[in-house]
Each structure stands twice: as structure tokens, then as C-alpha cells.
């Protein structure tokens, strides 16, 4: 067997990776599994000097770490300061070049399920996959060195949101995460959109599987067509009409999947038939010419001739992916994620332009975004969302964690557990949606500081010693030197670590 490259490990080569995971598991043995379950043996090795930030403000290094990652680990500031912000951005834009052994080890025990073919995932108990997806996503955010990649996976998971609580999605969302979100997170937008359009989970979640036209009086199901333009591409004011929604829905008639779960009171496509095969595998997506509207259509002013059949979807994806409104809509959302809740028009325009020029190249688009003056001048002006907050607290304290239910329960209290958002618009990016979560952040800070979270532990004294005392600990937590007020509160509070994790400075990014 040829060696598996990191890129293959990360993005493709399901069988090879599953195999290597098995080898790894047998080598590590049961003891390691046990340790992992209880959140032990997973500390990030800390050695050498861990120079904290010296500036009283968030400097460009600290700012870049705050925005491109789920928060720095101890020592990360010094590493990035040494290599320079530009080199760090390039490193993060090339995740396949980043050493990621710890994360791979921590998540190894999920790999068997994770890389299973969809058909086999459909054989799992209906309560099995979603909790694993939540835990795995949390662990990757905490332990991965490919931080920007994980941040973008979160971004696209919101953008193409699917709640696995709906019907078949409890089996097919893992495949969507793997084959749509993670496969294309730093790739090309058009490719990701196409993959999403024919993803079994999306076909189920937005009812595409039931969109058909067999008789002249059949009306297409518009659910996916509308969200495709409203949420995935042009945006609600992007210039499409109700007529366009209906025309796109007509183009997409006939696509379905072999599903497992009843929906709307009937078993939809319990047995499928395509290309001479008698039965499709569970979860298999296929096109039924007899359920497709073969007449001519017009989408956003562009004619789609009659008779293209399964080719209609390619035309639709091309039209919406390259629409000027799509560039602006995505640029606005990306700027909202990385710059400000209400980003400046100049930044949005620059990012949209690069998106168009690069034909939807996500890396090129992000590179342009990070180069805008608006990005550089926005340090500390955003508020972390709950997931970002929790992950950053676990990272900065070098916590060992299994990312299991006790952590998830805090995220549920704050309303941002992974893959629990019910509607297709995804978790809000704006801070105003999250202001009511402060109480739970404070309680999390206290619980973490006092090792009261099951499956999670920190070694506070050791961390303090390694960093070299209170001043360095405070600067590491805040990503800048503590103010006089913060230092004072740190000492007086009785629990300085919890205090700073709960403080406004740690909510900001």
C-alpha cells in the first residue's frame, strides 16, 4: 500500500484512511482508547519558550490569530510572530502542508464510522451518527492545527445548513459534511455548490427528492430552488423573481435518492430504479427522466433549451454561481465573519471582485479579504459566537477534552451546538444574536477553571509555571497585555483564570 499523504488523509481516500485508522487503533490499543474517553492523554505537548504578546493592544499577529482560528494555544503567538502574519496566512491556506498528528490521533476512533460509505452509514442506528458528528466537529476545532480550514468548515456548514434532525439527514449529514463541506471548504465555490445540490442530505432536507413532474398538472416543489438563490447564492435581494424560483425548480425536477425514512406520511422512493439497475443503494442519488420537466426554461434571463434532462442542473449551477449578486452576497457574509457585523462597502467590493476574477476560488477570495485595510483595522471589534468562545477557552488553557456531552451541553445552553440549527439559514453571524449567552459563558469559565466539566481537564498550575507567571498567563489568555483593571480584577476575583475567560476581553475577537 502506498503511503497516504496528508492531503489524502484530510480530504479523500476514504478506504485508505479507514485502513490506516485501523492500523493506528490496533497499535495504540485499548488503553489509549480508554484514556481518550476520559479526556486524558490528550494534552498538546508544551515545551520551549511560550512568549506571550507584549503589546497592550491586539497587534496584527494577535488579531490574525483571533480571526483566522478558533483562538490561539499557548505559544502560538510566538510561533506566528516569528514566521510573520503573511506566512501564517499562507500556511493556513494550505492545510495539507500542516502537521496534524495530535488531531488525527484524538479523532482516530471516529474514523471507521466517518469514512464508511454512505450505504453503510445508513445501516447505523438512527441515534448513532449525529452525536459523533457533533463530537468530532468539536474535537477538530479544538485540536486541529489546520485552524482556518476548520473555521471555514464552520462557515460553510452554516451557509449550507442542514439539521440532521430531519428525516434521512440523520444518516446522510455525515456524508454531506465529508463530501461537500470539508471537501470543498477551501476549494472552488461552484464545485461546492454543485456537490451540495446533489448531496443526499440536501436533497432530503430541502425536499428536492420529492420535486418531480410526471403529469402536466404537477407543480414543482420550490423549496430547494428558493433557498438555492436566497441563501446559497444570490441573496434575498439578489435580483431573482418568483418566476425564477419556479423555473429553477422545474430544472431540478427528477433528481431523487433512495431514502430510508418516511416523510410526509409516505415512504418516498423506498425502492428506486435507474440505469437498468433494479434497486439503488440507500442514499444513492439518481435522475429519473420520467419525473423531469423536459421543456425549455428561462433562469435569470438565460435560456435553457428543452431536452437537456440531467444537464439542466449544470446550467442552473453555472448561472447562479457566476451571478454578480452571488459574488456580493458571499463577499458580504465572509466579511461579516472575518471583519465586522456590518462590513464596510469598500471591503465587500474588493472581496467580491476577487471572487469573480478567480471564478469562485475560495483561497484567492480569502487572501484578498485578509489583505483589506478594513480587516487589519478591525481588531477586537467582533464578539465570539458561543462555539468560538468555548473552543478558544479550551485551546488557550491547553485543556484535555473528549469533546463529549458535558461540553455540548454548554453549547446547547448558549444555543449553538454543532448541527442543531433547524432552518436552512444557519446560525447567525451577528453578535446581537448571542448577547443573552453571557451567563453561560461565565459559568463555563468557572467550571473549566475548576475542572468541573466531565471529560475535560486543565492543569492550571503547570500552565502558569510553563508560561512563567501571572503576567504571562494573563497575556496569553487575552492575546495582549492585560490592562491595569484586568490585572487588578485577576488578583482580587479569587479565580483569575475564570475571571479573564469570562471577561469582556475574552468575548471579543
Amino acid at each position, binding site marked *: 500500500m502506498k503511503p497516504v499523504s496528508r492531503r489524502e488523509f484530510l480530504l479523500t481516500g476514504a478506504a485508505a484512511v479507514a485502513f490506516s485508522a485501523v492500523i493506528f487503533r490496533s497499535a495504540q490499543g485499548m488503553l489509549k482508547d480508554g484514556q481518550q474517553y476520559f479526556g486524558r492523554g490528550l494534552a498538546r505537548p508544551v515545551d520551549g519558550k511560550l512568549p506571550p504578546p507584549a503589546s497592550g493592544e491586539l497587534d496584527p499577529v494577535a488579531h490574525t490569530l483571533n480571526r483566522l482560528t478558533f483562538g490561539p494555544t499557548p505559544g502560538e503567538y510566538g510561533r506566528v510572530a516569528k514566521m510573520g502574519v503573511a506566512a501564517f496566512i499562507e500556511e493556513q491556506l494550505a492545510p495539507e502542508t500542516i502537521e496534524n498528528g495530535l488531531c488525527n490521533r484524538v479523532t482516530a476512533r471516529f474514523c471507521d464510522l466517518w469514512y464508511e460509505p454512505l450505504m453503510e452509514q445508513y445501516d447505523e442506528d438512527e441515534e448513532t451518527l449525529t452525536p459523533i458528528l457533533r463530537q468530532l466537529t468539536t474535537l477538530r476545532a479544538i485540536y486541529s492545527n489546520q485552524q482556518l480550514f476548520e473555521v471555514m468548515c464552520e462557515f460553510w456548514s452554516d451557509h449550507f445548513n442542514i439539521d440532521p*434532525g430531519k428525516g434521512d439527514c440523520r444518516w446522510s449529514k455525515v456524508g454531506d459534511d465529508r463530501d461537500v463541506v470539508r471537501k470543498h471548504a477551501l476549494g472552488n465555490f461552484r464545485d461546492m455548490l454543485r456537490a451540495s445540490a446533489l448531496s443526499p442530505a440536501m436533497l432530503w432536507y430541502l425536499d428536492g427528492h420529492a420535486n418531480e413532474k410526471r403529469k402536466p398538472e404537477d407543480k414543482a416543489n420550490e423549496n430547494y430552488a428558493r433557498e438555492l438563490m436566497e441563501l446559497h447564492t444570490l441573496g434575498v435581494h439578489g435580483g431573482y423573481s418568483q418566476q425564477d424560483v419556479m423555473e429553477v425548480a422545474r430544472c431540478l425536477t427528477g433528481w431523487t435518492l433512495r431514502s430510508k425514512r418516511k416523510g*410526509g406520511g409516505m415512504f418516498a422512493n423506498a425502492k428506486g430504479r435507474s440505469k437498468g439497475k433494479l434497486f439503488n443503494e440507500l442514499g444513492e442519488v439518481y435522475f429519473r427522466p420520467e419525473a423531469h420537466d423536459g421543456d425549455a426554461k428561462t433562469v435569470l434571463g438565460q435560456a435553457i433549451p428543452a431536452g437537456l434532462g440531467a444537464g439542466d442542473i449544470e446550467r442552473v449551477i453555472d448561472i447562479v454561481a457566476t451571478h454578480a449578486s452571488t459574488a456580493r452576497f458571499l463577499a458580504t457574509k465572509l466579511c461579516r465573519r472575518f471583519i465586522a457585523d456590518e462590513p464596510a462597502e469598500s471591503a465587500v467590493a474588493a472581496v467580491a471582485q476577487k471572487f469573480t476574477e478567480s471564478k469562485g476560488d475560495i483561497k484567492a477570495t480569502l487572501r484578498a479579504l485578509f489583505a483589506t485595510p478594513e480587516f487589519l483595522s478591525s481588531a477586537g471589534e467582533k464578539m465570539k459566537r458561543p462555539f468560538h468562545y468555548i473552543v478558544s477557552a479550551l485551546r488557550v488553557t491547553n485543556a484535555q477534552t473528549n469533546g463529549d456531552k458535558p461540553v455540548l451541553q454548554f453549547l446547547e*445552553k448558549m444555543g449553538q451546538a454543532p448541527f442543531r440549527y433547524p432552518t436552512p439559514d444557519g446560525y447567525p453571524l451577528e453578535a446581537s444574536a448571542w448577547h443573552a449567552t453571557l*451567563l453561560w459563558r461565565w459559568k463555563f469559565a468557572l467550571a473549566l477553571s475548576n475542572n468541573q466539566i466531565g471529560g475535560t481537564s486543565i492543569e492550571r498550575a503547570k500552565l502558569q509555571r510553563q508560561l512563567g507567571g501571572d503576567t504571562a498567563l494573563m497575556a496569553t489568555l487575552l492575546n495582549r497585555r492585560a490592562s491595569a483593571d484586568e490585572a487588578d480584577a485577576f488578583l482580587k476575583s479569587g479565580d483569575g483564570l*475564570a*475571571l479573564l475567560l469570562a471577561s*469582556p476581553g475574552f468575548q471579543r475577537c
Partner: protein
Amino acid sequence: MLANLSANPDDKRTLVVVFLRGGADGLTLVVPTEDDHYYKARPRLALGKKDTIKLDEKFGLNPNLAPLEAAWKDGDLAIIHAAGCEDTTRSHFEAQDLMEHGGFVAGGWLGRFLRARGPARSPLSAVALSPTMPEVLSGAPSAAAFQRIEEFSIGKKSAPNFPAELRRLYEKETGALRDAAKNTFAAIGRIEAIDTKAAPENGATYEEKDGFHQGLRQVAQLIRADVGLDAASVDLNGWDTHFTQNLVIDDNIKSLGSGLASFRRDMGARMATTTVVVMSEFGRRLGENSSLGTDHGRGGVMFAMGGGVRGGKMLGTWNGLTREMLEDPGDLPVWNNYRDILAPILTRHGANAEAMGKIFPDYALKPLEV
């Protein structure tokens, strides 16, 4: 918009959802006392007409629900029989799943209701009195599962100066973060001011060892403390009475009746803005089985109390228990869809027509006059 406790200080509305898990036997809770088919199908389990409390010309209330008679007479309690969801599998999991999600959709209907109202106005906008979050609250902007109110306060024990020092730092902030912290401290203050040991108001009493009672008691304490509670979910388990039903169901019915009545008394005038809805995943088969129990059926019973319900009468459709009216294999059908019962209540709790489309998508509502 700011999540703000004081954003709408007049909004004191709270919706309390009580879920009877296991499939509560509606025909025992609310007895069709004039229907011979009921007595023929249940020779050993049926309740005699004289043992029930007369509700109207067709129905009598289970005697263990006697504490609710006052609410009924005051017009503050509505009862809907033959209520439930579309599920025909008669599986607890499937039916609860469907009923909590509110259709074949993601998220819970209560979660979507809260989400449609905008950002949570309080860290305690929604609570569940349970160890884990029920599906009905899935997707809420903020929802906390808890068992004791004390869980909400922040640790003064390990670090006595922690809250004061934290407050000091947030007071030096500007803008939204400062306001959010101010609201949060206000909520904590109100929670910590709750005397959880205090006697309920208006002479109400809750059973000390009854988890359902203690859940309602704490909901009442949160409502009265004005912490911004929009919705609460409370479970009452143990309704799966396949075997010797009368031995197990009576205590549950007592707990339900006295708990709801105590809550109403405790809340007093606040009941006008507080609605309690009681539901179960399905009712049970009309015919009793050979082990003095009943098996999974379809239509059950729902209650709505307070919050301006049009009570004191049986609402919705009732077609009787003749053989041709039953659903195979002999079940009371669902003539009243739970969504048509919930919709008018959610409207009173602030959901407009657009929000209702999101709360119950893919369903043409025919709201009852609840």
C-alpha cells in the same frame, strides 16, 4: 436588536408545555361517560359515570383530576379529546419525535417559535426541567435544561469576589457588550433573590417528593421573578400502561391534577399571561388487553389552561366510539391535530402569521377556538 430583559418589560407571557411521556390514556383522563362502546370495550377498566366529575353531556373528568374542577368551572381550562399527531406507527419514539418537531421538519416547534421571535431576551428565555434538552426546544436561541434553580447562579463559593470583579470589568465596556452584561447581572440578581424554600403563594402546596410538582414550582418561581422566561418544558413520565393500568396510572393522574391546580393557585393573577399545555404522543387503544392494561393507540387528550383560553368546555371534533368511527385496530382516531390546538395559543404568545408558517411548515392550519 439588543437581547434585553427590559426591551419589553410588559411582556410577561410564558408558555409551559407539559409532555406526558409514554402515551397517556385519554379515555381514562377524560371519560366518555355516555358511550356504551367505552363500557363494552373496557369491562374491567372503565370508570363509572358516577365516579367521574361531570364536564358536559358526554364527558366526565377522572376523579383524581378533581383539583382541576375549579379551573374548568372558571372557564380557565379547555379540554380537547381525540387529539394527537399523524404518526400511525404507534411507536413512542416516532410519535414523540413527530410531535416535538411539529412535522417532518428539523428543530422543535417550541424552538422555532422562540427563534421566530428574534434573539433571546434573557439567558433564561427557555428552560426545560429535565436532565437533557427535549427535542421540542431544539433550535431555540437559548435554552437551558436544569433541575434546580440554584444551578443558574454564579459561583460565589469558590471565588466570592468573582461576580463583583467581573461586573466592574463589564461596566468599563461600551456599547452592546456592556448592556448585555448589565441585563445578565440583572437576571442573576433576580434568580439569586428567589427564595427557593419560600412557601408558594395563595396557599398552594406542592408535593415535596414529586418531581413534576417541584418542576412546576420552580417554573412558577422563575415566572414571578420576571427573569424573562418565554417558555418552559416539563415532563411527566410513566404513562405506558400496558399492564395493570389502574395500579400505575392513578398516582400519575393525581400528580398531574394536583400539580396543575397548585400551579394555577400559586400563579394567581399571573395565570392570565401564562398558558399551560398538556400533551402526550398518543392515546391508548379503546379495548383493554388481557393483562388489565391498554396498548398503544392514536387519539389522546390535550389540556390548555390559563393565558386566556376559551375554557370550560370540550373543544374540537368528537364523533363517538362506534365501531365504524374507530381506526384499525380499534383506536380512537385523531380528529383534532395538535398543531391546530397549539396555533391559537402560540398566536396569543406573540407568533404572527409569518412566524406560524415557520413553526408549522407544510401543514395547512385549521386552528381550533382554544
